[in-house]
């Protein structure tokens, strides 16, 4: 009974922390973007504008939650929940520190890939159920982008699996006690980060929503808290990919002096800021450029990386 209670407590704490961090990221992103673009950003509500998060949340809750009469009601309502659920489920296997994790699955890495592959449904179904041409175009782009980059994401991680000999994430972290995998698998790291940005469809790869071409892409018809779910799902995705990069390539909780959890949070924070910096600095590629880049450049490089790693692992 005590064991079960411990797990439930862990899950509740995790849910609460993650959703509040995701909400707080909205403030962080707007402030950092402002800093890099030489303006102030939100600075009125509360100290440093921190209360903008509360204001935003209240606004989203009280907005009219409108379902267009021409939409497929059931699917329209389910779609935004899928992305948040899939991303939150992925956090089940993330090892934050020794003992601070929900489940140490022996196929943890595959579980993460499986959940991130289910996230595509929210885009496809949301875009289709909206019954709107812009949404449908966004959904089509999202589906092809996410299916393609899922392949590269899996391939880029297989080198790490080969070196550590396990799909279990704690084993992967422990295999980096002497040397981080970013040193032995630099190509894998770059490819995983690229694929991760495409999977969370963040700028510069936010082609499914591309507001200058498609209004708001797959979520054009969404308002109120349903839009909020897509929004929170995106920020949760940023946290997830950053946490996975840290776990797989940057030694997870390992580090001197400071306690393990602090190291993990610090490293993850660096990558979250990197995500925002990428948004501030890179323009969006064209849709066909993104697909060509994926299949004609990333795929061969990922396969080559796998081949070389395999040769080294055999030696």
């Amino acid at each position: 009974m005590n064991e079960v209670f411990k797990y439930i407590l862990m899950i509740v704490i995790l849910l609460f922390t993650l959703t509040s961090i995701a909400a707080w990221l909205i403030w962080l992103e707007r402030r950092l973007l402002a800093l890099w673009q030489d303006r102030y950003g939100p600075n009125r509500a509360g100290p440093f504008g921190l209360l903008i998060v509360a204001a935003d949340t209240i606004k989203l809750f009280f907005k009219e939650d409108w379902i267009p009469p021409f939409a497929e009601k059931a699917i329209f309502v389910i779609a935004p929940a899928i992305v948040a659920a899939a991303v939150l489920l992925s956090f089940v296997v993330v090892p934050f520190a020794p003992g601070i994790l929900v489940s140490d699955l022996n196929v943890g890495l595959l579980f993460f890939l499986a959940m991130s592959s289910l996230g595509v449904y929210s885009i496809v179904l949301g875009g289709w159920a909206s019954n709107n041409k812009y949404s449908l175009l966004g959904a089509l782009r999202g589906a092809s982008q996410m299916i393609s980059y899922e392949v590269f994401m899996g391939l880029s991680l297989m080198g790490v699996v080969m070196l550590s000999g396990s799909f279990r994430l704690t084993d992967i972290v422990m295999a980096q006690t002497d040397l981080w995998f970013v040193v032995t698998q630099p190509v894998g790291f770059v490819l995983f980060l690229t694929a991760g940005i495409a999977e969370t469809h963040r700028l510069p790869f936010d082609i499914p929503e591309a507001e200058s071409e498609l209004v708001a892409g797959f979520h054009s018809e969404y308002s109120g808290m349903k839009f909020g779910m897509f929004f929170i799902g995106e920020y949760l995705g940023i946290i997830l990919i950053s946490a996975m990069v840290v776990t797989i390539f940057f030694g997870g909780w390992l580090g001197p002096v400071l306690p393990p959890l602090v190291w993990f949070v610090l490293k993850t924070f660096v990558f979250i800021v990197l995500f925002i910096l990428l948004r501030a600095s890179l323009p969006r590629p064209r849709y066909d450029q993104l697909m060509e880049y994926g299949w004609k450049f990333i795929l061969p490089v990922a396969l080559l990386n796998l081949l070389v790693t395999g040769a080294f692992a055999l030696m």
Partner: protein
Amino acid sequence: MDIAFYVTAAVTILATLLVITRHNPVHALLYLNVSLLSHAMLFYLLGASFAALLEIIIYAGAIMVLFIFVIMLLNLGKETAEQERKWLKWQVWAGPSLLAAVLFVELVILVSSSDGTAYEPAEVTPREVALSLFQVYLIGVELAAMLLMAAVVGAAHIGRHKRLVLHRFLKEEPEENVHEEEPVL
């Protein structure tokens, strides 16, 4: 653990039944998705966690998305649902039901003739799956690889098209003409 298995099995059967009785293609595909997810759950409960997650990654996460992608492009609306409703008469059900009934009888006989011991879930590690794929079933893997290669070549051939260039400046000219004077049009 037993309760979890029976609940999941019930969900699987129900979802699969709904797949074949829905008139709207997208709804049918979504139920097929639920069915695949609960299949994965069944695999997991039986100890094959690797197969379970591959089922989600490949079937639920990739192949079903492509199915929905195509259905989405076709933009099948109310008319298709009407047509399906007209097509799905009881005569259509007779043949498949008969064949399924034969299978069901077979299943009942097999189950009743077994010695009644329950299957003991045993953990199947990814290593074991890999070893059986590349030792015992190597010929199957190679045949599948050949089939996929043929499919890829076919897809590349169908997908290839010559780009139609209308503007004379963008037309590709042979190498030797590049340095010559502009041809008189």
